[in-house]
């Protein structure tokens, strides 16, 4: 086995080991389980986004829309329809897929900054709906007075409601499934066509790859998993709020991907960890945390555009 490959396997194993044992060491480093769960949820969203921006080379700045749609879909289902966690998640994800499919068709022929602008604008549409539709979504106050339901699967009961640890493993399960799916897709012939599109769109086109079609598919996959992350997010907080849909949230996902390293599959996880921890820390220390976050963005972009893993790769 080439040395490079054994390094990769070791890294993979280490990451999974850390993830699997998180509840046991998180306290020792000054954190708490829900923070770890939050990191995993955001890492899922950022990884989903990176499928599109890092591996297909398409700049989307509106992923919060699908993150939020997933979340509101789940929350609204549980609150108003059927208090069932898995059903709520399913509805949330389906909502995200349908929205992504439609919006994708409208915008897939655009490129570059124009595409980015349009994704931002579409994202804001949903923010605006959640904000305005008070009676249903709770408006600015958010969707509250509901909570995730324990799961009864006939033969087992999974208490994700009262046990933070159980809920963490529940989230980790979906995280693992999603990442496996995305990794598989990227290593497949289809995944290679996405790389081709990223590397040289014109050449991809002249190799017989229907570029717009493939971009739409990549977009769909990316938004679906962002939606899934959104459902997990609201379940974590037992709360949905419009900010999840705001372009600020989208920006945070992008910075997580950039910070960790867009060319690496684990990049977004690394980026999410650093960002969430930092954000948590800074906002508890000072009320000027927004300036710091902004400064952080600026510094990363100017001095560490390849991200943590990108730097490590070169070393």
């Amino acid at each position, binding site marked *: 086995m080439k040395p490079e490959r054994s390094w990769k396997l070791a890294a993979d194993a280490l990451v999974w080991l850390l993830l699997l044992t998180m509840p046991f060491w998180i306290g020792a480093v000054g954190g708490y389980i829900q923070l770890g769960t939050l990191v995993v949820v955001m890492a899922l969203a950022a990884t989903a986004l990176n499928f599109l921006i890092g591996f297909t080379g398409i700049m989307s700045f509106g992923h919060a829309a699908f993150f939020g749609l997933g979340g509101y879909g789940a929350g609204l289902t549980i609150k108003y329809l059927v208090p069932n966690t898995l059903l709520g998640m399913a509805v949330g994800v389906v909502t995200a897929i349908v929205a992504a499919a439609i919006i994708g068709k409208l915008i897939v022929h655009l490129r570059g900054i124009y595409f980015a602008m349009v994704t931002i604008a579409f994202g804001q549409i949903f923010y605006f709906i959640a904000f305005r539709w008070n009676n249903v979504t709770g408006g600015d106050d958010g969707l509250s007075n509901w909570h995730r339901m324990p799961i009864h699967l006939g033969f087992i009961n999974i208490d994700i409601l009262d046990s933070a640890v159980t809920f963490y493993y529940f989230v980790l399960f979906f995280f693992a499934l999603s990442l496996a799916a995305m990794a598989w897709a990227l290593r*497949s*012939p289809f995944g290679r066509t996405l790389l081709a599109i990223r590397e040289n769109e014109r050449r991809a086109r002249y190799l017989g790859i229907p570029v717009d079609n*493939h971009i739409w598919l990549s977009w769909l996959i990316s938004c679906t998993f962002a939606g899934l992350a959104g459902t997990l997010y609201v379940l974590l907080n037992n709360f949905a709020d419009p900010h999840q849909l705001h372009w600020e949230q989208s920006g945070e996902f992008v910075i997580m991907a950039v910070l960790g390293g867009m060319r690496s599959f684990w990049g977004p996880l690394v980026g999410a960890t650093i960002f969430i921890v930092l954000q948590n820390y800074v906002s508890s220390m000072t009320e000027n945390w927004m300036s710091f976050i902004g400064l952080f963005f600026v510094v990363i972009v100017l001095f560490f555009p390849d991200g943590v893993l990108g730097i490590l790769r070169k070393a």
Partner: protein
Amino acid sequence: MSLLEVENVTKRFGSLLAVDSVSMSVDSGELRAVIGPNGAGKTTFFNLISGFVRPDAGRIVLDGHDVTGLSPARRVWRGLARTFQITEVFPRLTVGENLQIPVEVAAGFRLRIGLSGAERLKVRERADELLEWSGLARNVGRAVGELSHGDQRTVEIMMALALNPRLLLLDEPTAGMGERETYEIAQLIRRLHREKGLAIVLIEHDMRLVLRMADRVMVLDRGAVLANGAPAEIVANEMVQAAYLGKAIA
């Protein structure tokens, strides 16, 4: 019936008449050169045939099918492949990966999430075949961007070949190359012509290549066809000489 029939295609850009009612007919297995002074519309002509732009008038028929309205990707499916004046490859990917992609697309796997063992073997064998044939095998793990200009061009041509085309369009394949590399690419093209039985249309400035390889030559000047015929005739043609303003041909 010919493989490619270009019937009176015309293309305007604003007030510029880039291609003026040009017709061309290419037979299977033929190697046709398209020459002309700079700005004659040769690349635009290729762009019309390959689908990069739509003609304002005229038709393009490939293998009996009217492809005038088809997208570039669709034309590839119909058996057309092309290379560009500035080499278009995937510079950050390895040579192996650059070839694997068109092989997979040509095999119909572009949407596949997984391949069976047999399918993977088939892709592997085809890619290896291409690598061996072209002499690129020694570079299989290197990023294409790191290769010499000549090798990059070879990769590009092999990517086009990987698509199993009936017709290959090569836009100034030896542009910017020195003697040695020009010779190597010329050899490659000749082998393509002889061993693979492809129809090739070649835009070239290097007259020696044209004279030695082409079955027929078409001369474009200011968007229109100036002359059409065997290489020797074209060289002797006074109008052609004039168009090149006395450039040494022989």
